[in-house]
Every structure is written in C-alpha cells, then in structure tokens.
C-alpha cells in the first residue's frame, strides 16, 4: 500500500511538470495553431541555463531562476521572430517539420555547450523528507507541486483578467476578428512563444532539481502529446488535468505492468492511452469539437 501511495505521489509530481510543459504547448497551439515539437528542448534549455548560473557563476538560486525565465522568454521571442514568422500560412506538415528541425538545432547547440553527462543541481531545497500520513515525501517534490500549482493558477488568472491574456484568447478564437479589434497578431504570437518557453523552463528547472539534468530530459517534449490529446489540444484546464492523469498512470504502470514486461512500460503506456483516446474521443476531455465528416 505504501509503495503505491509513494509512487502515486511521484506520479503527481511528474504529472504536474507534464502539466506545465503541456500548458506551454497548448498555449502555442491555441493562439498560433502551431504544433511545437521543440517544447522538450525549451525545457532542457531552461534546466541547463539555470544550472550553469547556480553552479558555475554561484548566483543564488532564486535570482538565477528569474534570470533564466527572462532568458527563456527572449529565446521564445527570438524563435518566433526568426523561424515561425516566415511560416505563417504554410501547410501543417511544413510547420511540424520546422519545429522538429528547430528541436534538432536546439539539441545540437545544447549538446555542444553543455555536453551529454548528467549534471546535478546543488541542494536548493531542504533534504529532510516530510511525513505526510503514512508516507515520506521529499521536500523537492512538495515544492515542485506547489510551484507548478502556483504557476497554473497564475496563468489561469492571466488569461482571465489581464488584457494581454484576453487578447490571446481572442486571437485563438478568431484571428481576423481579433485583428479588426486592433489586436496585433504578431505581438500575440511572440507572447505565446515567450510564455511557452518560460513555462517549459520552469518545468525543466523543477525536474532538474528532482532527477538532475541531461539531454534525455527532452523526451518530456514527446510525453506532452498524450497529455494534451487526452485533455483536448486547445484547452488549458485540459492540459493540466491531462498532464496529471498521464503522470499518475505512468507511475501506476510502473508498479503493475513493469513486472509483466520486464520494465519500460512507462514509455509506452501514455502512447497506448493516446491511441485509445484518438480512436474514441479525438478531441479529448475538454477540446473544442470540430464536427466534420471525413
């Protein structure tokens, strides 16, 4: 029982990080209709940059954290301006391939700068585990979940009340109508990429504090797909819920299915769920259904 609870907790933690990355993904999809395959590399960038600031330059963690977020936002703006802007109006396959190409470029650059070994964050959070009911939970986990939740709430408020957030929702809804109301679509596209890059970086820093950082972290970018498809591609609450569900299911499959298949089911179970969701409810839990007979 305790092992199950324990892995449920870690599932929720990983799930909340999925939720963060998925949030960025949905944001870009919602406002620019671009499927971003480079989300995992953005995460990797944030994790490595913050790590370098903390370990090599000895900057206190929180300052490094916010500096990383600013850098991530700039990176997002830069990517949008240089690579995505010329692609407006191109077919889907070109845009998908463009983000795959971007992912490859980013991965190459990250590899050249930071190498391929796993690097570990210095201890930022207290190490003594906390007793919650019958189980012990390390404090990094708790901070991660709390942090993820704060981010998710902040972004929800941002979309609901700030004028930039409302403008982004307007663009997502109907580009032309938004444009005729005086909203600059280019600016919105830029903001969407900047925010996506920032949330991915937050996810990267959190997961880096838990597992250490190496280039295999970019696999998170692919794990986002089951989460967003389950939640609905264009729904922010869906992304959050989808991320959590996928995280928990992964943890459970680690307990129940791994003994049957000699491990490794964590990688494949989310994608099996993805196929099932696509077959029976392709627009996910909260996605907008575009009813269309194909």
């Amino acid at each position: 029982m305790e092992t199950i609870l324990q892995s449920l907790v870690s599932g929720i933690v990983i799930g909340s990080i999925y939720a963060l990355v998925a949030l960025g993904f949905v944001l870009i999809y919602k406002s620019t209709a671009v499927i971003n395959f480079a989300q995992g590399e953005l995460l990797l960038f944030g994790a490595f940059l913050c790590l370098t600031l903390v370990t090599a330059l000895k900057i206190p963690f929180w300052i490094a954290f916010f500096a990383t977020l600013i850098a991530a936002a700039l990176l997002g703006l830069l990517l949008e301006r240089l690579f995505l802007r010329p692609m407006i109006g191109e077919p889907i396959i070109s845009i998908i391939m463009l983000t795959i190409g971007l992912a490859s470029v980013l991965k190459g650059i990250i590899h050249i700068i930071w190498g391929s070994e796993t690097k570990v964050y210095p201890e930022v959070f207290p190490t003594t585990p906390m007793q919650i009911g019958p189980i012990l939970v390390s404090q990094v986990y708790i901070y991660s979940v709390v942090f993820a939740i704060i981010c998710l709430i902040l972004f929800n408020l941002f979309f609901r009340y700030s004028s930039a957030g409302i403008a982004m929702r307007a663009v997502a809804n109907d580009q032309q109508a938004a444009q005729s109301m005086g909203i600059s679509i280019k600016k919105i596209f830029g903001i969407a990429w900047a925010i996506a890059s920032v949330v991915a970086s937050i996810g990267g820093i959190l997961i880096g504090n838990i597992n250490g950082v190496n280039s295999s972290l970019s696999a998170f970018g692919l794990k986002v797909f089951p989460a967003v498809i389950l939640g609905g591609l264009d729904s922010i609450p869906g992304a959050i819920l989808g991320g959590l569900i996928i995280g928990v299911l992964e943890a459970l499959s680690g307990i129940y299915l791994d003994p049957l298949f000699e491990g490794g089911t964590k990688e494949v179970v989310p994608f099996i769920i993805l196929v099932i969701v696509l077959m029976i409810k392709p627009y996910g839990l909260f996605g907008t259904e575009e009813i269309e007979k194909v």
Partner: protein
Amino acid sequence: MAIKCGIFKTTYEDDMAIWQTKAAKFWLWLFIIALVAFPFVFQNSIYILYVANTILITVIATLGLNILTGFTGQISLGHGAFIGVGAYTSGYLLNTYPNMPFLLCLLIAGFLTAFVGMIFGIPSLRLKGLYLAIATLAAQVILEFVFIRWRSVTGGNQGLLVRPASFYRITFDSDFKFYFLALAFAILATLCAKNIVRTKPGRAFMAIRDRYISAEIIGVPLFRYKLLSFGISSFFAGITGSLWAHYIGIITPEHFNIMVSVQYLSMIIIGGLGSIYGSIMGATFMTLLPEVLRAISNLFADKLPMLVDLFGAIREGVFGLVIVLFLIFEPDGLAARWRTIKNYWKLWPFSY
C-alpha cells in the same frame, strides 16, 4: 536529338508519357549505365560503396513516404518503425527457415509491413493533419517498444544477427555484390512509384491531398484510398527494412527509432513533396550530408580535436538547420530548384 523547348503535345498520351523527349530517355539510360558502372570504378573503396548502398536502400522507403505524405497528404511520423517491421520480419524468417528463398522473405516482409501500416492507417479515417501525425507518433513509440521487448523474435537491445541475402547461387555478402541487388530494387521501386502516381490510384491520392471533400464528391472512396496509400507506403518501407537488415547483418531497435522517421520526413521535404525525382534527390542529399560533415570534421580534426567529440551534436544541429533553412527558403525542395535550373537552360540563351 530533340531537346524540349516548349509544349507541343497534341494527345493526352503524350502528356502522360514518362519520356517527354528522346533526349530525356537518352540521359536516363546514360544515368542508369553510370549507376551500373559505378561499383566497378570504386571497387576498392568499401566506404564509398557503403554510402552508395545506403542511398539506394534509403531511396525505396523515401519513395514510399512521399507517396503517403507528398501525394496523399497524410503525415506519418512512424516510417522508421515500419522499416523496422520489415527488417525484423525478413531477418527472423531467413534465420528460422534457412531454406526459404530470399525473395520470398522480402515479399513477406513487404506485405506484413503493409498490413501493419494499414492498421495504423485506420485512424486516418477520422483524423487529419496534426492529429494523424500524433497518432503515427504513437505507432512509432509502440512498435519501438515491441522491438525492444519481444526478445524471442527481435533479440531485444542486443540485436538480431541476420544472414546475408542469397539468390540462386549468389550470396550478397560484400558491399560490391550487394550494390547490384540494392540498385535493382531501387530502380524497380522508382518505376513502380512513378507508375502508381500517374495512374488511377495516384490521381485519387492527389485529389485527396488537394481537397478531400471534392475528392469524395467526384467519387473517390476516401477510406479505401487512404488505406491503400498507407499500405503502399509501408510496403516500400518493408522492402527497405528487409534489404537493410540483410545488408547490415545486425539490427537493433536503435536503427528504427523516432530520429529515423524524422530523417525520412526531412528527405521528402528537402527533395520535394509530391515528386518522384525529389525523393531520390532528398534521400541522396540527406545520406550524403552527415558523410560530408564527417569528412570536413576529420579534415580539421588535428587542429581542433574537440570536433570529433562533438561530431554527434554538430551533425544533429546541422541536420536541423538544413531542414529549417529549406522550409523557409525553398519549401518545394530540391526538385523545384532542379526544375528552375532546367527551365532556364531550356530556352537559353533566349530565355526572355
């Protein structure tokens, strides 16, 4: 010898002809003769023959993917895994039944891969565009898991040793001998692909790509043709897989991971979507690119020894950069560039 300098066609047959002019026919035959003569010239360089064989094998699957993505408009991120299905099928069959003729193994591999491809193509009935891309991504991940875990057939991560192909008394166990096998299949595949796209199924594919609702209205059964497209494309992938397995001799799941799928997509993008010649150019370009990079980095290796360590990263970065630059500056690929150059010379020096 007449060179084409304008359109003088008077019948539909003329318009559909593969050889538009006698000159084109001549140059193509010359090209094929050059290809046949190629290994005799480079008989002593195993490396060059290896690269040539890789290109020839790659061309087949690229043609298949272009039929699916370029002509039918269905995105597939699972092509690498489909190649794997062909490779493991053929390798397993020849290992378990040593007396089985190689060609039979190859055909079974092709048809089984076509079958698997069609199963994963079923969602295309309901899904379009990026949803389909994600569904095929799932196919890739699931098949990769099967390759790693189904040890009794695939050998898992240790890999599967595959015996070389043989045909009557000839065993294709050297790069030199294998070249001719690969060349024969590459030419056959090109011929098949060219003829598929200019006959009824090909026209149906293009109709579906351009506007599927109109296609359905003029009487193209969408589901049947989408599945057919998945089947044909996976069949080509299976043939590539089988040839690759018997050429390389040992196959591991890493040969068929998501990067391979991405690489094939990049080949058709760089070559040109919806172009047979483009597929060949794209496959050649993308296979040569890492080899050229390797040559360059070896050239500077004594001055900058770190280049060797970072080669993997540089290759990955350049690979991505090439895709991005092509998409932004030449979205129709090498085939379009080639056409522009040809059109320029057609009327030269009076090109205005």
